[in-house]
């Protein structure tokens, strides 16, 4: 129903703001567990050298470079939407990582033999250390910048700044490393084995990873946070494989498995962003369609409703005018018939009240606060309404029975609307019994608690009953079999009940009449 209609379209930020759900966490944990198993399996054979694998290295570096560059593009696009500094920092990190993998591969010993550039023994290791220590710094920046307010104004300048800055630093630093091979720390003893100095780098990196993980895990993880945690963990596993399990030996089994981990790490973010973007588009398309449908429904409902309100108000107004005309004519007689004029005025008063009831029920439905929910005691409401209708019952010769379950659970709802629902249902029952002659006119109100956590209220009458041919029509705003009162009463009741998460239905009363029943969820369920 249109009352409870809320469609969220503004979810373009989902990947970096929405909290990761359980299934995503489970997937991440499974992935890491699998990698740990791989790590344990590789450990015994990690130090076996795999000779002649140098040609694979350029392909590996190219794969890393491409996937990290695409990741940069996606992150920057996301930044363009969200303007979050944290995203900009992360994009910078991937740019840095992607740019430094190229000189690393170029300078790798025996990969491009005969190249004059960067064949210094320490160059590759220094670039690797620079790259390895650099990336987690960007992740730290991401974690720290998450709470910063978004960038105002144009997104192009920050993007250009980050690209220029990171490119400058990455290329400048690797250039310096290549040129200044002589002054670099002695990381390598020969082309394949690392020196003792190298073993400063892994612990320092691990400390940075740990800091990054600590900062990220400080608060509930967004989807992006979660997968960044996974990225850091895979990098950690890579590092353990490279530096400890294979003891720094290059191009061995452990080293290559570590590199595979690195490649996985570089593609995780890409895959997550692509998947999230695709599903975001699907969701967006769906919610736009739903919104359009909802708007159409609302317009139709509003048209039907305003026509129905117009009709409901016009009936008593027309009667009032006719009664007033009659009254004027009685008074204009010679001598004036004040008794008849008085009767006409009495009818005007009654019709005026009826018109005001129509307006009141519309007001109860649409005024501000109609969505407010408080704990409501339905038994008390029913007793209140039954009491208010006492004179009506007496005048119409209706006897009333109430069968209310003691200790009925409260429901969450809008008291004014639920009151109006009870009024309308009783109105309906009274009207249905008005033409009845020759049998007892009995109205019975019952309340029950059901085992499925619902409270059920029924209003039974011994009136004219339901015509099976009408079926659900009785809930339509224009449906009329009623001599008097609220033509749109039942539609109103159903709207309200459904907006409260309940249902309203009609059934036959045995042997005569109808039962209108509504159910509402207990308040306890949602607290």
């Amino acid at each position, binding site marked *: 129903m249109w009352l409870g209609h809320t469609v969220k379209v503004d979810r373009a930020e989902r990947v970096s703001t929405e909290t990761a759900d359980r299934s995503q966490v489970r997937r991440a944990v499974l992935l890491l567990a699998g990698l740990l198993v791989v790590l344990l399996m590789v450990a015994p054979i990690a130090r076996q050298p795999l000779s002649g694998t140098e040609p694979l290295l350029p392909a590996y570096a190219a794969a890393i470079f491409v996937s990290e560059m695409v990741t940069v593009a996606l992150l920057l696009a996301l930044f363009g939407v969200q303007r979050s500094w944290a995203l900009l920092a992360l994009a910078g990190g991937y740019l840095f990582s992607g740019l430094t993998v190229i000189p690393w591969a170029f300078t790798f010993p025996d990969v491009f033999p005969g190249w004059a550039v960067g064949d210094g023994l320490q160059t590759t290791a220094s670039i690797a250390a620079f790259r390895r220590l650099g990336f987690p710094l960007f992740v730290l920046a991401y974690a720290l910048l998450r709470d910063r307010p978004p960038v105002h104004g144009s997104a192009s300048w920050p993007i250009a700044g980050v690209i220029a800055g990171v490119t400058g630093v990455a290329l400048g630093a690797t250039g310096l490393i290549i040129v200044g091979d002589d002054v670099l720390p002695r990381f390598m003893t020969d082309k394949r084995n690392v020196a003792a100095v190298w073993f400063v780098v892994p612990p320092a990196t691990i400390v940075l990873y740990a800091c990054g993980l600590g900062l990220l895990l400080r608060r509930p993880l967004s989807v992006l946070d979660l997968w960044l945690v996974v990225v850091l963990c895979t990098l950690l596993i890579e590092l353990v494989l490279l530096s400890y399990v294979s003891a720094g030996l290059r191009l061995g089994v452990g080293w290559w498995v570590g590199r595979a981990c690195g490649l996985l790490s570089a593609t995780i973010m890409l895959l997550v962003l692509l998947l999230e973007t695709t599903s975001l588009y699907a969701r967006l398309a769906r919610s736009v369609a739903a919104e359009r449908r909802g708007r159409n429904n609302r317009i139709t409902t509003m048209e039907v409703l305003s026509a129905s309100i117009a*009709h409901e108000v*016009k*009936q*008593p*107004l*027309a*009667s*009032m*005018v*006719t*009664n007033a*005309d*009659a*009254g004027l*004519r*009685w008074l204009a007689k010679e001598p004036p018939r004040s008794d*008849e004029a008085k*009767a*006409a005025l009495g*009818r005007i008063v*009654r*019709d005026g009240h*009826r018109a005001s009831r129509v307006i009141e029920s519309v007001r109860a439905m649409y005024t501000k606060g109609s969505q407010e929910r408080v704990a409501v005691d339905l038994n008390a409401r029913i007793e209140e309404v039954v009491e208010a209708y006492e004179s009506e019952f007496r005048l119409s010769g209706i006897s009333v029975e109430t069968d209310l379950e003691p200790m009925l659970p409260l429901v969450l709802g809008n008291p004014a609307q639920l009151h109006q629902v009870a009024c309308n249902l009783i109105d309906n029952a009274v009207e249905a019994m*008005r*033409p009845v002659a020759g049998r007892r006119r009995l109205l019975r109100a019952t309340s029950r608690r059901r085992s499925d956590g619902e409270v059920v209220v029924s209003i039974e009458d011994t009136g004219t009953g339901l015509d099976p041919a009408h079926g659900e029509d009785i809930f339509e705003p224009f449906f*009329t*079999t*009623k*001599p*008097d009162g609220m033509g749109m009463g039942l539609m109103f009741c159903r709207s309200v009940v459904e907006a409260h998460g309940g249902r309203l239905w009609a059934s036959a009363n045995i042997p005569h009449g109808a039962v209108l029943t509504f159910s509402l969820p207990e308040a306890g369920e949602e607290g």
Partner: protein
Amino acid sequence: MVADGVISVVDDDEAARESIMGLLGALGFASAGFRDAAALLASADLRRTSCVIADFRLPGMSGLALCAHLAECAPAIPTILVTAHPEELTRHRALRAGVRCYLQKPLDPDLLLACLGSVSRNRTGGPE
């Protein structure tokens, strides 16, 4: 003459029915009220009915169908249709079906009087 008999008012809205009967009373006519066509047709008052004022939208048999039915009675009973929501198309249909007047609620007393007058003239000049 209309005034000789009873004017039967058929309207499912009790307040509307009473208001029309009240006005008829002030205009000097005797009237009887019915909530639907079936109630009128089953009533003993039908034989005394000189004219029927029916709401267009009635539960069960519609005002238009009631008019067609009454036109076939012997003697034929003239019908005045009233509605809160007048439409040109319905007016044409109603007048073609033999309805004497198609009036809008709230009723204009002078129009109603004129209408009752014309019904009465037609009736007295009729085949009976």
